[in-house]
């Protein structure tokens, strides 16, 4: 059943115009879309983009909000080319129209009652996408933000200047070609100090390692999950994850879950 949360904006279908579509590296691209009348969107929420003109991509593609420029009605989507759907999105040209269902999901927790304890936002690969909008929103509320971002190697790296404008950026790569060598959980940032709150998005093994670190140190931690989805509205029950209270929809109960809700063996 849908949450009756009065804070949630009404969902809608928007025919968005492609403002720009920029190739970032061998596998990532940045799609920026504009539409008038977009509702308020929270960090950690996502959109479902309709893929037209290819029978191989029948369903909409769920993609997290990388950035939102509310005044201009622009959303930025950081996308990795994975299959037929994202390949098609990579070919869109400025001026093209794409139909977008938004805003979907619950979003990350934001501070309550002026809580300004520092937060570490941990991302891996394309999972860094939702952390920019989250970090900017937190910084705007006076919360010190550190980004701890993991990549496989320099080849996967992106221009992180937008992150650097919001908070401190720490990098790990598996081969040590940039930043510290190893996984995010080995980084000196986590080894030498403990953040007040961790919010993370990335490959499941990385998030489980981050969750294990947070759990061992008693740090509250939220993870943003990614399961295969159909409706995005909590109706089809395809994208479920196991929780302490049974199956829940990643699309509508999540995608953000506190690790205490999940049944991860950490």
């Amino acid at each position: 059943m849908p949450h009756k949360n009065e804070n949630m904006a009404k969902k809608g279908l928007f025919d968005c115009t492609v403002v720009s579509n920029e190739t970032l590296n061998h596998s990532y691209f940045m799609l920026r879309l504009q539409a008038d009348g977009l509702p308020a969107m929270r960090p950690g929420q996502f959109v479902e983009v309709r893929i037209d003109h290819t029978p191989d991509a029948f369903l909409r593609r769920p993609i997290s909000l990388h950035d939102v420029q509310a005044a201009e009605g622009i959303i930025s989507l950081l996308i990795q080319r994975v299959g037929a759907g994202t390949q098609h999105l990579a070919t869109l040209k400025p001026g093209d129209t794409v139909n977008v269902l938004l805003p979907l999901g619950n979003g990350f927790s934001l501070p309550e009652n002026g809580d300004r304890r520092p937060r570490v936002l941990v991302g891996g690969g394309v999972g860094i996408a939702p952390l920019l909008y989250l970090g900017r929103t937190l910084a705007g509320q006076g919360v010190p933000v550190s980004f701890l971002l993991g990549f496989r190697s320099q080849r996967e790296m992106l221009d992180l200047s937008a992150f650097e404008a919001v908070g401190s950026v720490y990098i790990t790569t598996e081969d040590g070609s940039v930043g510290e060598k190893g996984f995010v959980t080995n980084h000196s940032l986590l080894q030498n100090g403990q953040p007040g709150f961790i919010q993370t998005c990335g490959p499941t093994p990385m998030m489980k390692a981050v969750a294990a670190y947070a759990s061992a140190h008693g740090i509250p931690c939220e993870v943003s999950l990614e399961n295969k989805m159909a409706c995005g509205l909590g109706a089809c029950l395809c994208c479920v994850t196991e929780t302490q209270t049974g199956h829940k929809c990643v699309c509508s109960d999540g995608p953000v879950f506190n690790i205490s809700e999940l049944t991860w063996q950490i």
Partner: protein
Amino acid sequence: MADLRVDIRGLQLSNPVLTASGTFGYGLEFADFVPLERLGGIIVKGTTIARREGNPYPRMAEVPSGMLNAVGLQNKGVDYFVDHIYPQLAPIAANWIVNVSGSCVEDYAATAEKLAGLEHISAIEVNISCPNVKQGGMSFGTTTQGAGSVVRAVRKAYPKTMIVKLSPNVTDIAEIARAVEAEGADSVSLINTLLGMAVNVKTRRPVLSTVTGGLSGPCVKPVALRCVWQVAKAVQIPVIGLGGIMTATDAIEFLLAGATAVEVGTANFIDPSVTMKIIDGINTYLEENGFQSVQQIIGKLEV
């Protein structure tokens, strides 16, 4: 505006477009996109006597022009429905129809009996065709004896309109339709999903946790149309057609083939407002072709 009203043996629909069970939640999930009272009817998620957690993830595989699902009737049980969900639906003036499933004849009847007392539930759709449960479900719908036994038991427990949802995974769907008609079904809806499968060659494993699942979407429409055509010729009771309907044109094809009404399912995932476009499109077709009423095209396929 053409007259879009249809009648399913006493169940009056303002138009022939319903939403298919399992694709529209409890309707409320779509309230931002669809004025629910404009639908001909809303068939809510499959409901069973006891809570079911459904199958493990992954439950869905995208395929060309469609998808496979293996949700497995996840629901909180009929008592939860009656106590917690029904009160949210009752104030909305729509034809609420509950899809009923079970793993034995007694469970179907007991679930139907609990729903019979709910004033604002207009009908039930008895699901003898779910391919994603180990016991019951489709196994009842693949023999005339199995189908007949469920319908006979539910008929005794449920006095209002009873629709029976048929499986296409049979040799002769018309034979099953005749069997449920003989036991007192008011209508048949068809088709439920086709049993299918997807394989991941990278992992050399099935995509679905259950190996097989139910195929839906536009890829099944030709099969569904054929089934509706065969069944509409075989029974006197109204037929409700579904399977891959994405547009008004698709819906009109089913009406011409003999369906009195249609259900829209997987299309809701691509466009949550699609049902409104289908209703409007049927009206436009009728007006442009000089028909005053949708009744004038039902079963009027010229062969």
